[in-house]
C-alpha cells in the first residue's frame, strides 16, 4: 500500500484548527504560560534553590546514590505509565488508521518525550550533584554530570519506547525499575539514620568523565537510531492506550478532576489481571470480606504501603508538627488503599440496591479494612520513628493503633466525595479568581484527620503518655461514629450524600 505523505495532512489540520481560533490566541496562551512560570519561579526561587542547589552539600554518598535510584527509577516508571509514545486523541482516531507512515506519525511524540526525559534527567543530575558535591567542584565536572544525567534520561526513554513496542520483557524491566526505586527509598532512610559524612570528596576528574559521557552519548545515539527505525513496529493498541492516558491526563488537568485518572488506572490494572474466583470469607460481614479480598489481591500495593512505614523517618529532622502531619496523611493514604469498593458504591448505587443494604450498614462495614490498614501503618511508622530515635520512648505503637478509626473515617469520606463541584461560586482574591469546587473537593477527606489532633500534638511535642493514647482512642472512635451517624441513614441506600 502506498503511504500518503503525512506533512501536508498535518499542515492542513494545523491551518484549519488555527482558522477556528481567535487571532493571537496561541501567542496569548504562550505569554500567559511564560508569565506564570516566571511568577511562580520568582515566588518559589528560595525553595527551588534548596531543592536543586543548597548553599552547602547536605547529603552523604549513600543518600546521593539512593537519590540516583529514586529519581531515575521514578522517571522510567512515569515514562512507562504515560506511554512514552502517544498521540492526541483526534490523531489516534483519524491518523493512526490512515495510510500514513507510522514512523513519521510517531516522530513528533518521540521528540517531545525525548526533550522532556532529557530535561528531567538533567534536572535530577543537577539536584543530586548539588546535594553531594563539594562546592569547590563547580565547573566542568558539574556540566559533564548534567549532560550525563540528560543522556541517562534519554536512554531511559529509549528503553521505555522499546518496551512499549516489545513483548513481556517490558514488565520485567518495570519490576527492576520498581525495585531500584524501592531500594533508593530504603537507602535514603538508612542514610538518614546513619551519621555518614556529608558530601563526596572523591570525585572523578573531568578527564575521566569526558570519555564516559562520550561513550554514553555514542550508545544513546546508536540506540536512538535503532528505536527510530523500529518505530513503525509499535503496536497500535499500545499507542491507543497511551493516547487515552494522555487524553485523560488533559481531562484531569482541565476539569481539575483527579478521579478521571485514578479510575482509568484502576480499570486498566484489573483488565490486565487474571483472577480465580474464591469464596468470600463467611466468618466476616460480607462487605468486610469483599474489601479484604480486594486488599489481598493488590499485594504489591500492600508491600509499597509496608515500605512507606519508614518514610516518615526522612522527616526526622523536620519540625515536629511536620512529622505529625506526615504520619496523619500516611494514615489517610493507607486507608485509601482499601476504599475502591466504597468509591464504586458512592459513584453509582446500583450494586448497593441489589445488595439491599442500608447506607449505614454499608459504610460501617466499609470502614473496617481501611481502619485496620491505617492503624497498623501508623503503629509501624511510629514504632520505626521510636526505634530510630526520632521520638522519645513511649507507647507510640499504641498511639498508632488508635489512629485506625481516624484514617478509616478520612479515607472513606474521601472515597465518597465524587466529582468536583464546578458549580460552586468562585472567590475573588487579590491574586485572581479562585475556583472553590476543586478546593472543597481536595479538603474532603483530609478534613477528618483533625480527629487525630491529640496524636499530632503528641508527635509535635515529642512526648506521649497513656492518657494521650486513651484520649486519642476515644476521640477517634467517637469521631468515626459521629461521621457514620451524620452522613448515613437507615432509610436510604445511596452513599453519595456524604
Amino acid at each position, binding site marked *: 500500500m502506498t503511504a500518503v505523505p503525512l506533512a501536508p495532512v498535518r499542515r492542513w489540520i494545523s491551518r484549519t484548527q488555527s482558522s477556528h481560533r481567535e487571532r493571537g490566541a496561541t501567542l496569548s496562551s504562550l505569554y500567559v504560560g511564560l508569565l506564570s512560570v516566571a511568577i511562580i519561579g520568582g515566588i518559589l526561587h528560595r525553595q527551588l534553590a534548596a531543592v536543586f542547589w543548597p548553599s552547602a552539600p547536605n547529603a552523604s554518598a549513600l543518600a546521593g546514590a539512593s537519590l540516583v535510584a529514586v529519581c531515575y527509577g521514578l522517571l522510567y516508571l512515569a515514562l512507562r505509565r504515560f506511554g512514552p509514545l502517544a498521540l492526541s486523541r483526534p490523531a489516534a482516531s483519524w491518523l493512526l488508521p490512515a495510510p500514513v507512515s507510522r514512523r513519521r506519525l510517531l516522530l513528533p511524540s518521540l521528540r517531545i518525550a525525548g526533550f522532556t526525559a532529557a530535561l528531567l534527567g538533567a534536572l535530577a543530575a543537577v539536584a543530586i550533584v548539588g546535594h553531594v558535591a563539594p562546592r569547590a567542584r563547580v565547573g566542568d565536572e558539574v556540566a559533564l554530570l548534567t549532560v550525563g544525567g540528560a543522556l541517562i534520561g534519554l536512554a531511559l526513554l529509549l528503553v521505555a519506547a522499546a518496551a512499549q513496542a516489545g513483548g513481556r520483557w517490558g514488565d520485567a524491566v518495570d519490576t527492576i525499575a520498581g525495585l531500584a526505586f524501592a531500594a533508593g527509598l530504603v537507602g535514603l532512610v538508612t542514610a538518614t539514620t546513619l551519621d555518614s559524612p556529608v558530601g563526596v570528596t572523591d570525585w572523578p576528574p573531568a578527564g575521566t568523565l569526558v570519555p564516559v559521557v562520550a561513550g554514553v552519548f555514542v550508545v544513546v545515539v546508536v540506540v536512538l537510531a535503532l528505536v527510530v527505525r523500529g518505530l513503525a513496529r509499535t503496536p497500535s493498541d499500545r499507542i491507543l492506550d497511551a493516547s487515552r492516558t494522555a487524553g485523560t491526563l488533559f481531562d484531569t488537568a482541565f476539569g481539575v478532576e483527579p478521579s478521571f485518572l485514578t479510575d482509568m488506572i484502576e480499570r486498566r490494572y*484489573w*483488565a490486565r489481571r487474571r*483472577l480465580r474466583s474464591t469464596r468470600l470469607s463467611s466468618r466476616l460481614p460480607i462487605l468486610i470480606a469483599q474489601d479484604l479480598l480486594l486488599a489481598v489481591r493488590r499485594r504489591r500495593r500492600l508491600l509499597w504501603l509496608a515500605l512507606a512505614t519508614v518514610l516518615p523517618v526522612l522527616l526526622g529532622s523536620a519540625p515536629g508538627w511536620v512529622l505529625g502531619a506526615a504520619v496523619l496523611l500516611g494514615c489517610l493514604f493507607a486507608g485509601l488503599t482499601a476504599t475502591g469498593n466504597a468509591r464504586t458504591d458512592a459513584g453509582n448505587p446500583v450494586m448497593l440496591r*441489589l445488595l*439491599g443494604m442500608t447506607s449505614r450498614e454499608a459504610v460501617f462495614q466499609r470502614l473496617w479494612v481501611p481502619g485496620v490498614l491505617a492503624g497498623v501503618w501508623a503503629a509501624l511508622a511510629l514504632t520505626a520513628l521510636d526505634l530510630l530515635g526520632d521520638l522519645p520512648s513511649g507507647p507510640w505503637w499504641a498511639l498508632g493503633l488508635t489512629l485506625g478509626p481516624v484514617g478509616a473515617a478520612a479515607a472513606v469520606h474521601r472515597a465518597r466525595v465524587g466529582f468536583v463541584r464546578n458549580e460552586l461560586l468562585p472567590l475573588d482574591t487579590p491574586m485572581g479568581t479562585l475556583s472553590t469546587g476543586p478546593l472543597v473537593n481536595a479538603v474532603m477527606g483530609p478534613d477528618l484527620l483533625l480527629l487525630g489532633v491529640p496524636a499530632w500534638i503528641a508527635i509535635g511535642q515529642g512526648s506521649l503518655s497513656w492518657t494521650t493514647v486513651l484520649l486519642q482512642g476515644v476521640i477517634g472512635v467517637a469521631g468515626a461514629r459521629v461521621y457514620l451517624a451524620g452522613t448515613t441513614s437507615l432509610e436510604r441506600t445511596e452513599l453519595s450524600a456524604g
Partner: protein
Amino acid sequence: MVDHPAVEVDDLHVGYGSTPVLVGVKLTVPAGEGVCVVGENGIGKSTLLRCVSGLQQPDQGTIRVFGGDPGATPEFWRAVVTTVEPPTWYPGLTAREHAELVCRAHGQDPEEAGIDEALERFGLAGHTDAIPPSLSSGQKQRLVLAIALLRPSSLLILDEPEQRLDREGRADVASLLSDYLEGGGSLLIASHDETFAVASGAAITTMESLSAGTP
C-alpha cells in the same frame, strides 16, 4: 404485601423539556402476576419502568409499589430488583464473586442458592473467573439477569431482558421468568418481543392502551 397490587400507576405524566413522553398513564400489575409493556422505541417504556423503580420523579401522578411509595429505602430494594440501570461493577471481583456477594448479602448460602448452576444456565460457566467489564454486552446482560433471579425478591422490573440474547437464551430466560411467576413473584417488563413475553407468562399490554392520550 400480598394485600396490595404489586404495582399501581395512576394518571402518570412525564415529559422531557417541552416533549411529553407519558400522558395520563394508568397501569396495574396484580401481585403474583406479570405484565409486559410493548411498543416501539422512544414511546416511554423505559421511562415508565424508571418511575416505577423510583429512579425518576414523574411530573404528575401516583405510583404505588406493594402499597407504598417507590423509593430509595432498603426495604424497597430488598423486595424489588430492576435492570433499568446498567450496574457499575466492583473492581477486582469476578463474575461469580459478584453473584456470591449479592446472595450472601441476602443471607443465602452460595451453594444452596445454586450460583454455579445459574451461571451455567445463562451460558456463563466459562466466564466465572472473568471480571464483568471484560465480558461482552450480551454476557453482562445475562450476568445481571442471573444475579437478579438468584437473589430473593417479590417484584422484577426488567427493561428489554431479551436484548442481546440469542434465540436459545431468550427461551431459557422466558422459562425462568415463568418459574418466577409460578413461585409467587410479580413481573413488570418492557419488551419488543411478544413471543418472549408470552413465553414468560406475562400479560401483554401496549403503551398506547395505558396512556390517556398519545404524546
